[in-house]
């Protein structure tokens, strides 16, 4: 089972990095207005590799929890707690990434909002798996190349990443405020403007 964790960790990292690189090249290609066929293929590549990557990420999370160290040792390590935290974030980012692509298809690239959201999810997912990979490096070999950047940024992955109650309440209040505002905006917007742009009442 330890080997299964190693294999699934390698596979999800490779596939999700491929998804991120594909999306990055797609954006650059679109910006430059060149290589439309290549960017189209890369867009599909990102979707497929993100899907496979997410499956292996979940397998990796399960095998990591069940087959590497005993529970007492896992919970005794700040590094492991941080790794679990960012693995969860990565799963959420890549799940939303896939849901957006699944719901809107390739048409998402025609909407600035969806495009921004889609790329943001890929970026968030990529950064999360980069961090978890770095923590995995520390757990396995006590080192990670990313430390060069993390140490400069003052980030210590050996200390538990936790938010204080004040921060948690503030963030949640902010998110719920945004949700309420967005619902109100949608109602207001629908009242005055339909999808074809004509001003109408409900």
């Amino acid at each position, binding site marked *: 089972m330890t080997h299964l964790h190693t294999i699934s960790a390698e596979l999800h990292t490779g596939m999700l990095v491929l998804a991120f690189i594909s999306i990055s090249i797609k954006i650059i290609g679109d910006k430059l207005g060149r290589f439309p066929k290549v960017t189209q293929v890369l867009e599909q590549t990102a979707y497929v590799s993100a899907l496979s990557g997410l499956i292996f990420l979940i397998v990796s999370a399960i095998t990591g929890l069940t087959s590497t160290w005993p529970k007492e040792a896992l919970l005794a390590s700040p*590094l492991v707690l941080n790794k679990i*935290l960012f693995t969860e974030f990565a799963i959420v980012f890549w799940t*939303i990434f896939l849901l957006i692509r699944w719901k809107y298809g390739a048409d998402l690239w025609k909407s600035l909002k969806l495009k921004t*959201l889609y790329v943001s999810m890929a970026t968030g997912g990529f950064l999360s798996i980069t961090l978890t990979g770095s923590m995995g490096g520390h757990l396995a070999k006590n080192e990670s190349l990313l430390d060069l950047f993390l140490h400069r940024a003052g980030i210590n992955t*050996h200390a538990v990443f*936790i938010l204080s109650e004040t921060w948690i309440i503030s963030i949640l209040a902010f998110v719920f405020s945004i949700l309420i505002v967005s*619902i109100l905006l*949608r109602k207001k917007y629908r009242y005055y403007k*339909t999808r074809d742009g004509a001003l109408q009442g409900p």
Partner: protein
Amino acid sequence: MKKSTLMGITAVLTLLSFASVSSAFYEGMPSIDGQIQNDEYQNHYKDSKINMDVYWTLDEENIYMALRSHSKGWIGIGIDPTGSLMQGADIILGYVKDGKLSIEDNFANSAVNHALDTALGGKNDILESAGSENDKGTVIEFKRKLNTADSFDRALTDREYKVLLAYSDTDDLTSYHPAKSTAFINFFSGKGQNEDIDNVGNGGSIVKTQNPTTDSIPTEKNRFQSFLTMLTGIISIAGVTIALLIIPERGGNE
């Protein structure tokens, strides 16, 4: 007989006796050859909890140590952890593969991790080493100074040390140890006892209650906070996404 002749004979005899005692002392030192012979070591601690043996002999400057397990993976010893679990322990571990010993001088830089002394800014203080492996198990032998003057090693003195013993069935040094035990050993007096099992080892009732520090280990509150942080993160990511999807796009082409 002249007085000077008598003094000369006395001096020669003194020198000879000193030389014979010295040579006997040094001839008694274990040979680091990967084999443990009967009575090769002056001290032996058998940990019956995990069926692992620790042998050692001291000279004025060095400790000669042998570890034996009944498994074919890595085997290791951690001396004097100062924090929780293995944190702060001076660790030596190794394995034998294809007849060749791989041995490392490590330091536990966290409760659950250890790194090469050299990677942490220290030095490798294993002076000699050898190992062997067969169907009966693994033996590693090594020699190091009692005081290596390395901040990532423990200077061994005449006191009792908490000693972590472990071995695995694989050669992967990062694999978790299925067999582990804690003992209390005084390397100078040769006394040792297992933390969990009474009357093991070669005498002495020297079990102490340990008060490990908990600075580096996440507390129950930390774990709960970590869980809350995770939930907050997930709700935030999902919440902001939903909010963005709800907000109508300018031009209405969502």
